[in-house]
């Protein structure tokens, strides 16, 4: 089956792998570059994919964190994300999946309403981050956040696990999400 599972491979020593899934190749590349510029005790690996399922590859390391990048300017991007989500195993959603919405800064170009993405993230019980990946400053900040989250998901931070982090993030969101 071409479904991604979180624990089907053994982890490599001191390595953390993130998978960025999104239709905007240039943005993903820039985000990957920003992430790799960060200081990090673990070795980072970034995989970029346009959609899931991934082509079969034996050499692929274990994926620790999946980030779905949704471009709010493009309905195709949302559609692509929704179709890719079918190929992710349910146990991934225990803190190892994250949604990133880009393009919210240019309100006039947005063809997807913010609530759509909020609902999507809520359905999959995963955190939603907003970042305009085209702006250098925001991208660098987001890269820092993602590196920290990745380290936690890979288990490199003692005392905190991906599930811990998820419940921490969720309790800071208000109860209004339950109404959605």
């Amino acid at each position, binding site marked *: 089956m071409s479904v991604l599972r979180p624990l089907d491979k053994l982890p490599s020593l001191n390595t953390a792998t993130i998978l960025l899934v999104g239709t905007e*190749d240039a943005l993903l590349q820039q985000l990957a*570059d920003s992430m790799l510029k960060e200081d990090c005790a673990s070795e980072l690996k970034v995989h970029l994919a*346009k959609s899931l399922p991934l082509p079969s590859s034996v050499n692929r390391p274990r994926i620790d964190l999946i980030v779905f990048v949704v471009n709010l300017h493009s309905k195709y991007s949302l559609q692509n994300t929704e179709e890719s989500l079918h190929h992710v195993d349910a146990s991934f959603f225990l803190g190892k999946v994250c949604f990133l919405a880009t393009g919210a800064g240019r309100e006039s170009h947005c063809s997807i309403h913010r609530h759509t993405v909020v609902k999507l993230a809520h359905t999959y019980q995963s955190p939603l981050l907003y970042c305009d990946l085209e702006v250098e400053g925001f991208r660098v900040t987001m890269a820092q956040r993602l590196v920290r989250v990745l380290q936690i998901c890979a288990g490199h931070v003692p005392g905190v696990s991906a599930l811990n982090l998820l419940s921490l993030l969720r309790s800071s969101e208000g109860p209004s999400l339950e109404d959605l």
Partner: protein
Amino acid sequence: MDETVAEFIKRTILKIPLNELTTILKAWDFLSENQLQTVNFRQRKESVVQHLIHLCEEKRASLNDAALLDIIYTQFHQHQKVWDVFQMSKGPGEDVDLFDMKQFKNSFKKILQRALKNVTVSFRETEENAVWIRIAWGTQYTKPNQYKPTYVVYYSQTPYAFKSSSTLRRNTPLLGQALTIASKHHQIVKMDLRSRYLDSLKAIVFKQYNQTFETHNSTTPLQERSLGLDINMDSRIIHENIVEKERVQRITQETFGDYPQPQLEFAQYKLETKFKSDLNGSILAEREEPLRCLIKFSSPHLLEALKSLAPAALFSRIQKLLCYSASHSQGTQDLSSCMSHCIQDVKIMMSQHLDMVNQMYASPDIQLTTID
């Protein structure tokens, strides 16, 4: 010098921006070097224009000289006009005559003047065997309107002529006729190409765009060269869809080549088809009017936009059509035939749609098909 000519020259010179003024005046070659040197080009434009008009009056500029200046201005500002393309053809079995420029000019002028007494026709020859013709139209009773001329660029060694589109469309048949007879062709047809950029039209019509042929000994590996990635790319970044990307890139490269594309602004494809049904009494098949479908691609620079679909990784239906047609056509990749495969794919899409319609109405004895 006539009042109208003076006014005409003045308005033409006023249109020219100051930085191009000396170049255009030199190309015009009507005022001598000495006279041009007496003009102070650093003044305000009105004063420069006054001085130049004065010099033209001294030299007694005629309407022809003024028309020539207008042609030169248009040659420098080709993109301000929208150009149509006409193709002429000889009848079957006719020989190719030697082209005589003088005879062509005389013949063209005579035909127009015979039909309409009041026309101003001017010629200017340029390189590549091209002649620029300017025609100012009048009627039997009115003088020619110098401010709404039509320009024709005729390449004498080819059957193609480019005409600027103007508002006075009633003269187009006459113009076509004059061009055909003067150049000793049989008929003239308007092609489905229109643009502001004469160079792009030339490139498309004379097939000057770059076509790449397959070579087996390319030294640089495909991945580094064509994916547009930095060769010093971080090895910690891995692209999952690299095989797919390479394929798309290869097909795009085969179709478009490496060089800049001719600048197309829009391309339109029309499909007209009727439906037929085996049994009588079907709604769609009984229509008298055929079904018409129009696909229009438009963009400030259409071909570059299509070419850049590949790096943008937007594998949309259009890109798929392009790749499909590119991988199935043989021999040299003719760009227009590549795009015309879109039409066939639209037919396929339509027939698929018809299958859906058939299924929806669930009537096995009524089947709709398309006929060409």
